[in-house]
């Protein structure tokens, strides 16, 4: 078989090149009489030689984007970095972050919105990535536990100091939820902390430790705010 020719010809069918030529769908310089026209407009069939020309024609005459993105294209920012994905409608945000992107800090426990271990921060709100469709996150700003750790947030150190985990599976969900709370309220009471963590379940029963760690982290952040330059509280 000739290199580059379609292997379909071996099944007794026309190879693709010959098929296209036969149907005159593809310009072919070698065939006399076939006019070389490169790009034909999908709306009005006018043809153009240059790609840029057809793009500006579509924008100007058909008032449409030249290269519309498909429904499943999602641009979003995760931990400060911009990404573009092609997603399926049934992908959850959890699946995208954890399985596709490899940010394994986000955990899946119940997969039904009932435990908080898959929490991420989306545009400032602590939300459940298992109950969020990735295709509905266009243009969103997302923060995962990896981003919180990379920013040297005092929560991480305080969680270690106060032994807030036993098996540790629920911990990222707690830390992310606590970070969202501290972003809104730098001086939370113990009651406010308990309320904010109301959607996070821990099967090991580490509950009493969390308010202590969070209040200490809040204190560090408040002090840092008072002495600008020592640490970036963001």
């Amino acid at each position, binding site marked *: 078989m000739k290199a580059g020719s379609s292997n379909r010809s071996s099944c007794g069918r026309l190879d693709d090149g010959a098929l296209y030529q036969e149907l005159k769908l593809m310009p072919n310089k070698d065939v006399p009489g076939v006019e070389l026209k490169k790009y034909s407009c999908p709306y009005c069939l006018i043809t153009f030689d240059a790609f840029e020309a057809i793009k500006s024609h579509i924008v100007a005459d058909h008032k449409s984007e030249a290269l519309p993105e498909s*429904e499943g294209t999602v641009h979003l920012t995760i931990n400060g970095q911009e990404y573009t994905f092609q997603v*399926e*409608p*049934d992908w*959850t945000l959890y699946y995208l972050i954890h399985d596709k992107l490899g940010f394994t800090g986000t955990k899946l426990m119940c*997969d*039904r*919105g*009932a435990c*908080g271990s898959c*929490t991420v921060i989306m545009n400032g*709100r*602590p*939300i*459940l990535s298992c*109950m*969020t*469709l990735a*295709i*509905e996150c266009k243009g969103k700003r997302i923060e995962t536990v990896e981003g919180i750790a990379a920013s040297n947030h005092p929560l991480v150190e305080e969680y270690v100091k106060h032994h807030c985990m036993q098996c540790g599976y629920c911990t990222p969900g707690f830390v992310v*939820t606590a970070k969202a709370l501290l972003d809104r309220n730098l001086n939370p009471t113990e009651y406010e902390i308990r*309320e*904010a*963590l*109301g*959607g996070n*379940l821990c099967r090991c029963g580490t509950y009493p430790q969390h308010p202590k760690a969070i209040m200490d982290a809040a204190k560090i952040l408040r002090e840092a705010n008072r002495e600008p330059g020592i640490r970036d509280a963001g």
Partner: protein
Amino acid sequence: MRKFAHIDAHTVDEAVSALRLYGNRAAAIAGGTDLLGKMKDEILPRYPEALINLKTIPGLEFLREDAGVLRVGALTKLEDIGKEPLVCQKYAALSQAANRMASPHLREMGTLGGNLCQDIRCWYYRNPNNRFPCLRKGGGRCYAIDGDNRYHSIMGGSVEGGCYAVHPSDTAPALIALNALVVTSKRILNLENLFQVDVGKTTVLDADEILTEIQIPKPPDGAKSAFLKFAIRKSIDFPIVNCAAMITIFRGKVKAARICLNAVAVKPYRALNAEKAILGKQMDEKLAESAGLAALSESKPTERNGYMVQIAKTLVKRAILACNE
């Protein structure tokens, strides 16, 4: 989850026409906290072929007072409603209900429209892979009535088919006590008339109709409202019983009263007997207690849920007293 098409609606009309195109084979998605759980568990005999996203419609997420009427967009998140000082001061029952709904995360995602249109939580109905094809799915029998019905209706089954699944919404009774109206893509309804018990349905909305706004008229002068919820845990859990009341007291006497229970019947249950029992009378603890008795005078608990009657009586009493503080 199985495959489905996904359409971002950009206007209410677009959502309506997309829903119409699919007949009843599509579903609108708001926060998705109820819908996605149903889809993951494949509880229904039919899977939606498409989801029509309402979150991409601008202008459905708002909360403001217009000429004394509180207007809340259907896509407004429960967290934002619960934390809004205006709601807290003037429409306390709604604020308290929003703040007790599910968990903080679910309130950051769940919308008011979704909360009113959510599906029932009967554990037979919700059992994965359509394990119990019951009356509410077009099947032949109710599994709860002979089975474990500890969280089912204490006010009898629906007339239509004998379903005993309770309506689980926390905000519905609060909004009914506050005399709310709902605006849809084709009509305005009294919220009390939104609910319906039918195969695959909890509301009277047509397949191509969506909720756009909830309106609460100016409460009467001197009216106070309150919402109480009984659940096993303080957070995450659905109500076992909840109750909201709006009471107007003038010179110590009850001038007006609206009381609504939920999770006790197939629809939110307006306790008209309790309202009648206290109207024009001197407000005190005894009167509130008699209202609790009156509210449950028509109750007919099933084998395992007699305890809910006692909880409901107490919540009615406490909700009324909370309006007198």
